[in-house]
């Protein structure tokens, strides 16, 4: 396990800045247990990045990717129709933490500062002193969001906690400007995927990193055929098993009741499972090919299927580690007195010429994500098939914490945990970009999806090859979204009126928004 201190201290002292103390992320004034009720269960929120429900056998996927999740499901509420508010971490995580859709929190890039309302209206502030609040994410973009809300956290573990080796500067100093700037410096100096910005010292850094990796060569030899997993946009390397153990250990040491937000990086690209999972799906299976989408890329199906194979193996690896985590929580007794939530921030696509999630598209594999919630003492599985959204998480957590749902949260309390069953509700997903004036200006290019009941209408607006393109799918009869019925299905016209009205509302510059 790596030690951050020596390298970070060296870089801090060597720089021109001689002051600025390291942010004290442990709030010493908030002694855990002082104002905490021992009757309130813990809430352990576990999120795996880029995990699509479409690739989980729990939800009917062809490959047996999630036996451990299925085991967990036996004591959980399983939400079969849960959707992310976006196909990208920044939009989606902000929606999850604020209970609002992207057009409200308007965090559409990692450099977007949080609006003043968003800084106040979030889950950590809402839960307040009822819990000892801990957050840990391996995703740098999500970590920047957590730093914006840092004042509400009692403990904010650094994103490279439990990692093997690597360098990261961005969280050396506090403040949004420092975060964005140092993140840029991290990429500039250390990111292995680009030519380094430093002529000499970065090579020494690569050497040092590699020596550190090779020091574990006996243990790691052959373990990672596609290389040791690395945090995106950095050269921080980690072993998922060590991160799992580190998280379990951290959770076991927290005083109750605690709200712990844990965001693992896998199975995000580069899809690097251990060798024992690599050959699991050498079954020759491939899904039926789909036509390339005009807004997608042009990757060939053969390449997509290879990537899908690696991704599925990585998903199985993730499932195995989640199983280990749950076992450790059970042994420690945490499982019995906690709400444990399993979900993702968005999905991943391997079809229509496109792979990954950085895309304008909003097909179901990108926005249909898993959600399982295990209540304290729950022994029976409950299945919920209504449409739900990750903006529902905040109101639900408030409800189970005996806090009134705030007016600014647009989500609903989840059915099965006190919410009403509403088969006709609207669930929205968006990916968009602002015009040149920044986040207070009009949203310029946007993909907006409306899921309503068993139907889905998508609008692609402002793109060169799709100025105003609509797609309509009957998801009950066409779950693979093969048949665009926009022109033939009368329900499409009804939904279009609703979608267009919402589009006009949300694309306005911020001063026009209520």
């Amino acid at each position, binding site marked *: 396990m790596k030690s951050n201190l020596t390298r970070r201290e060296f870089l801090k002292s060597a720089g*021109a800045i001689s002051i600025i103390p390291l942010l004290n992320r442990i709030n010493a004034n908030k002694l855990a247990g002082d104002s905490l009720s021992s009757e309130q269960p813990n809430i352990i929120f576990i999120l795996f990045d880029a995990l699509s429900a479409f690739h989980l056998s729990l939800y009917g996927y062809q490959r047996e990717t999630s036996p451990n999740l299925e085991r967990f499901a036996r004591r959980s509420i399983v939400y079969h129709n849960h959707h992310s508010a976006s196909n990208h971490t920044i939009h989606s995580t902000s929606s999850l933490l604020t209970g609002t859709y992207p057009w409200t929190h308007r965090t559409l890039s990692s450099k977007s500062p949080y609006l003043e309302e968003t800084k106040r209206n979030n889950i950590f502030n809402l839960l307040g002193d009822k819990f000892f609040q801990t957050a840990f994410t391996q995703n740098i973009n999500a970590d920047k969001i957590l730093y914006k809300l840092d004042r509400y956290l009692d403990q904010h573990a650094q994103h490279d906690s439990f990692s093997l080796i690597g360098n990261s500067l961005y969280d050396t100093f506090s403040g949004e400007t420092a975060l964005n700037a140092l993140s840029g*410096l991290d990429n500039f*100096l250390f990111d292995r995927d680009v030519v380094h910005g*430093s*002529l000499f010292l970065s090579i020494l850094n690569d050497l040092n990193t590699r*020596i550190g*990796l*090779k020091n574990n060569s006996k243990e790691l030899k052959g373990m990672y055929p596609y290389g040791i997993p690395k945090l995106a946009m950095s050269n921080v390397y980690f072993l998922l098993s060590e991160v799992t153990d580190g998280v379990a250990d951290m959770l076991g040491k927290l005083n109750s009741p605690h709200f712990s937000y844990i965001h693992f990086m896998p199975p995000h690209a580069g899809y690097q499972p251990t060798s024992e999972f690599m050959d699991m799906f050498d079954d020759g299976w491939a899904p039926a090919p789909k036509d390339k989408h005009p807004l997608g890329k042009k990757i060939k199906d053969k390449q997509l299927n290879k990537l899908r194979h690696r991704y599925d193996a990585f998903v199985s690896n993730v499932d195995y580690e989640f199983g280990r985590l749950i076992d450790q929580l059970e042994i420690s007794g945490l499982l019995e007195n906690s709400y444990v939530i399993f979900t993702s921030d968005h999905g991943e696509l391997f079809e229509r010429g496109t792979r990954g999630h950085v895309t304008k598209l909003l097909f179901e594999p990108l926005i249909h994500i898993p959600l399982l919630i295990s209540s304290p003492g729950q022994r029976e599985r409950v299945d919920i098939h209504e449409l739900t959204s990750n903006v529902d998480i905040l109101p639900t957590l408030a409800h189970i914490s005996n806090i009134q749902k705030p007016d600014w949260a647009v989500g609903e309390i989840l059915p099965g945990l006190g919410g009403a069953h509403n088969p006709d509700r609207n669930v929205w997903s968006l990916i968009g970009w602002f015009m040149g004036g920044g986040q207070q200006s009009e949203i310029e290019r946007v993909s907006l999806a409306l899921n309503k009941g068993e139907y889905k209408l998508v609008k692609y607006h402002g793109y060169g090859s799709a100025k105003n393109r609509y797609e309509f799918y009957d998801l009950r009869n066409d779950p693979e979204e093969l048949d665009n019925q926009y022109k033939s299905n009368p329900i499409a016209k009804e939904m279009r009126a609703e979608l267009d009205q919402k589009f006009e509302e949300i694309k306005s510059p911020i001063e026009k928004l209520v």
Partner: protein
Amino acid sequence: MSTFKSNFPTRAQITNVFGVIVFIVFTWSLYRMTWFLPSWLKGSIQDVLTTSSFVMVFALFESLIILGTLLLFAFLLPVKVYRDTFVPTSTTLLTILACFSVYLLQSKVDIIYQLELRELVLYPILILVAVIILVFLLSLIFNRFESPARIISSIAERMTVFLYIYLPLSILSILILLISLVF
């Protein structure tokens, strides 16, 4: 103390060599910045200025480290070997190392991640030994042939102009960082 001082190059020599270092390090950083700038420009002006300032300050730090390393060499190696030909030897050495680094970064840096542990330890030692041998060789050449030494020294002297560009830029960057991060 006098031995210590006599091993060290003169201030003028150090300035000339520092000019070469600064030219190489800052020019590379600025060149790479053009690659990153489009994505940085998506942020606020403050973010762009602060990021650029961090890059400049790091370049200054890197330059000082390299200068310090060369001065350490000058102190440790015999006077006649290095100090007497400090400017031309350092300038040539820096140029060769810079070319090697550029080659490594542009095409071969992944090779580092393919080396085994003993190679990772052995190769840098071999490079260090090669550098020391090169220093000896270069000083031999420049002691024997004054003309190339003079030409290279005059080139190095002209590089000091970059100190007047990049050092103020670095100081400005430090001020920007102080304002951004502290006030």
